[in-house]
């Protein structure tokens, strides 16, 4: 299957990534090169093979359900590109 310009535009939208119009066509070419190469996985018979869920056999750890951290509002805000009184400031979401 082949990726075209419109497909790139659609996945860029899904990824919330602004790809300039002029880059769509070359990007489609690059992605096609990669997807044609991975097509070789199609030749392997994977019937009955379980998909890997964890590379190291391990039961997911549980911890006690209690608060272990918090009250870090100042630390959380130090890298904010826009903030006011412990709020992140963004452009208007609703008119």
């Amino acid at each position, binding site marked *: 299957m082949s990726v075209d310009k419109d497909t790139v535009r659609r996945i860029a939208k899904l990824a919330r990534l602004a790809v300039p119009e002029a880059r769509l066509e070359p990007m489609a070419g690059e992605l096609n090169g990669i997807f044609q190469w991975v097509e070789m996985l199609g030749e392997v018979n994977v019937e009955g093979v379980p998909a890997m869920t964890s590379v190291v056999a391990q039961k997911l750890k549980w911890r006690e359900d209690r608060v272990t951290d918090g009250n870090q509002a100042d630390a959380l805000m130090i890298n904010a590109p826009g903030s006011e009184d412990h709020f*992140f400031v963004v452009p208007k979401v609703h008119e």
Partner: protein
Amino acid sequence: MSDLISMTLAEARDAIRAKTISSRELTGAFVSAIEKARPLNAFITEAGEQALAMADAADKRIASGQVGALEGLPLAIKDLFCTKGVRTTAASKILGNFVPPYESTVTQNLWDAGAVMLGKTNLDEFAMGSSNETSAFGTVINPWRAKNSNVNLVPGGSSGGSSAAVAADLCLAATGTDTGGSIRQPAAVTGRVGLKPTYGRCSRFGIVAFASSLDQAGPMTKTVKDAAIMLKSMASVDAKDSTSVDIEVPDYEKLLEGGIKGLKVGIPREYRIDGAPAEIDALWTKGAEWLKAQGAQIVEVSLPHTKYALPTYYIVAPAEASANLARYDGVRFGYRAEGVRDITDLYEKSRGQGFGAEVQRRILIGTYVLSAGYYDAYYSRAQKLRTLIKRDFEQAFEKCDVLLTPTTPGPAFGVGAKTSDPLEMYLQDVFTVTVNLAGLPGISVPAGLSENGLPLGLQLIGKAFDEATLLRAAQAVETAADFKHSPAKWWSV
């Protein structure tokens, strides 16, 4: 001063303990070597002042008799590990001004052992690359040059700043991370040792995430013994990383003793690839002979799904990356685009301007393979392939204790030589990526020089959580190879 900086980690540790040198002296020598080596661009952030303060604190502890495992030893840290109060960029514009309010567990373990931080090393953006050329902070230059040549070469990637720093004597050792070969490949092309531990051996907490099921931190060092010392301090079980494993961390340095008599070394026949240079094959054969001469038994094994590893990786890793990198949206931290219409425009433009070309390409691949209608054909199939690749190793390890392979398909290449075709760059990881997919430990050891005078490495692959045997075999290769070469310090004249 040059003899101070060319010491191994073990030598420096012993000299500090014997009080023949102070941490301040040693750290000062590295700080000045780093300043002179700026043409290499190995560091994104130099932390000279902080390093000297940490050295003074270490000297005080030494005077009072408190000596940690790495007391007073200056290290370089890949700029993918969050360091509290010190800018951490992942070599991306999108994190260009990010100052973490917390410390990664691996680096905290190093500071708890008394180590000193010299600075943060350059890397491929978000660790995505094999040449350090995707960094938003510029390419790192390999300290090595080919015979009779002034052409700048790449230091490998993604941990290229760390590999260059270790090879150029800008630190005693460095940390790296390895998702598809990012510790072992740069170590190989700079003539140094690089160890990727078993998945779960080191905590991933505080390491900027690329592909969470593959990422693992590890040491980059001058010797195998140094790697053993570093791993002991880096590894831990950590409540902040549920995938870190609760298995005791042994004294790897002590376990280096004992030799390799009777060790079974597997040679996977599928790693003989068409078009690989003859010198790679010759070095590999030599490596097997070295081990045999020390009492190991060489057995041929088969890893039938090897050729599917790279394409599997280029589905799994971008898929995880596209999810992990969704957090960079210009809202809570990181780069924010100016002059936007609305919130969606803010996300799209911040990400479009903040991420470099390779990162964008991988986000798009990942988004595509996870999107409705394609998930089964790509992602789900790749995860099944991963099971088969891991099974190959399990079957091979029924017949042997470690595997021996080349680390890279060739020596360091020129800056810009492989940037036009992403696939050609991806092939750099052809021998290393299988190890990440199977979660196993792997190490690259410098084994010889190419025809044009550049370092080449051999890779050993071990059983899960058997780093001790892996390191012992690696030391046997190191002893036989007796690789004593170092690059000429052309940058500091």
